[in-house]
């Protein structure tokens, strides 16, 4: 059974939990995965997001999320103007990704230091989301748990190294998934955690030769 505040709640900016609140959370996750202030956002909308998004403020909601606003922030309605003020250049495009969830979006973000990420996901109802793609890797991330993302070479022992770093700090992994482009190439490991990740975990991951990049993403 769901909790009290799933029924009387959440506090949100209307009009739609899937097309507005969920869209804010998708933008928020993309912004957190970028890890710095975004200066450019290319946003591709699929299905119902493309068709009815405008009437639901989906465009504003996504931009608001990228800027770090929460789903109950009253500035969401002014997100376009605020984006321009903050130097966030954006564009929207209608696309057809084929047989995916009707509320799917792919966000291409460029950060202030030139960092680039692409994050794809869907708003799956009641404000809940699922991130399904990060930089081309298939993932499954709900944003409900803090997560550790590790980009590494596909070699034996790397998973053990990361697991060791977490174990030494007594941090428990709730869910885990590894995906790769091709054998022996680059891989993406995602661990969803029971508690927030201290910054030292990321630093320690980066000190291993086979690990290219590590990132802690807070729960949203």
């Amino acid at each position, binding site marked *: *059974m769901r909790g009290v505040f799933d029924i009387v709640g959440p506090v949100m900016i209307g009009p739609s939990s899937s097309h507005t609140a969920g869209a804010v959370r998708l933008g928020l996750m993309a912004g957190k995965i970028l890890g710095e202030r975004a200066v450019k956002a290319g946003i591709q909308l699929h299905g119902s997001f493309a068709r*009815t998004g405008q009437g639901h403020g989906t465009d504003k909601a996504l931009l608001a999320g990228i800027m770090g606003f929460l789903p109950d922030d009253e500035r969401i309605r002014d997100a376009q103007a605020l984006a321009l003020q903050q130097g966030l250049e954006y564009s*929207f495009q209608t696309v057809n990704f084929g047989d995916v969830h009707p509320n799917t979006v792919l966000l291409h973000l460029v950060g202030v230091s030139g960092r680039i990420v692409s994050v794809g996901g869907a708003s799956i109802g009641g404000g809940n989301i699922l991130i399904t793609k990060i930089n081309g890797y298939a993932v499954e991330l709900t944003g409900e748990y803090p997560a550790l993302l590790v980009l590494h070479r596909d070699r034996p022992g790397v998973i053990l190294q990361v697991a060791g770093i977490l174990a030494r700090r007594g941090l428990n992994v709730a869910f885990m998934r590894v995906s790769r482009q091709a054998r022996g190439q680059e891989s993406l490991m995602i661990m969803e955690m029971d508690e927030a990740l201290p910054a030292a975990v990321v630093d320690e991951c980066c000190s291993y030769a086979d690990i290219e990049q590590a990132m802690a993403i807070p729960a949203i």
Partner: protein
Amino acid sequence: MMTEFNTLAELMAQAAERKLPPYELVIRREMETRAVSRAAVWSAMQKNWRVMQAAMAKGLRSEERSLSGLTGGDAKRIFSRRQQGFLGEAALTAAARAVAVSEVNAAMGRIVACPTAGSCGIVPAVLQTAAEQRGSHEDEIVAALFMAAGIGMVVEQNACIAGAAGGCQAECGTAAGMAAGALVQLAGGAPPVICEGVALAMKNLLGLACDPVAGLVEVPCVKRNGFVAVHAMVAADMALAGVCSVIPVDEVIGAMQEIGRLMPAALRETAAGGLAVTPTAQAAARRIFGKSSCS
């Protein structure tokens, strides 16, 4: 002992056994499943109530139109007629407040989903109005909100609360049940009377379609919140007067699930049937979405 209940009958039986009001069991279950204090659960609900109040106040003042231009300004109109209406002042005030919250939602304002964004006006409107009539303390309203939540949790567990799953009977119908149950509690009705209120309110909205114009949570949703608030007040009054539902509440919830399952997809939030495919609705959709793509 972990607090758990799957039906309203179970909730009421446990409440009687443990000599506690049913809403208290709803609070305890939340404390146990999330390992948080009673004070934390209580103050979170109190915070939600204050957001609801702010939305009611804002919506009654505002004449702002929604993004689509389909709705806005009606709460104020209804409120200004509250003393001349066929219905008494309380009913029209509640209707105005429910429309107010719903208009705030449509205009990208801050609301509390209850149980959904589409049905967010009903519960706050009846509680604020009843609390004013009765001079209720804020704590009584917060307690009534926990009762409302418990009712919604049971409906979600055994049926559904999303228009896409079960039509509007699942959204506004559930909100009506939550509101009626909360009102009965506020008036001091015993747990079986709360169940009668929920049953009467939900039963009378069974079969209600979800056919929103242009797929937006506006038409018929905004005005429906006003109608359903009054509907919930009638159900609560009937229950408090001693009227009983021949079909017990948990069976009504089961019937709602069954009807939702039988309902064609065209009437479940897809905007492919009913009001949504009227010529006027289709022209509105073309006007709203015909503009160049997203900004």
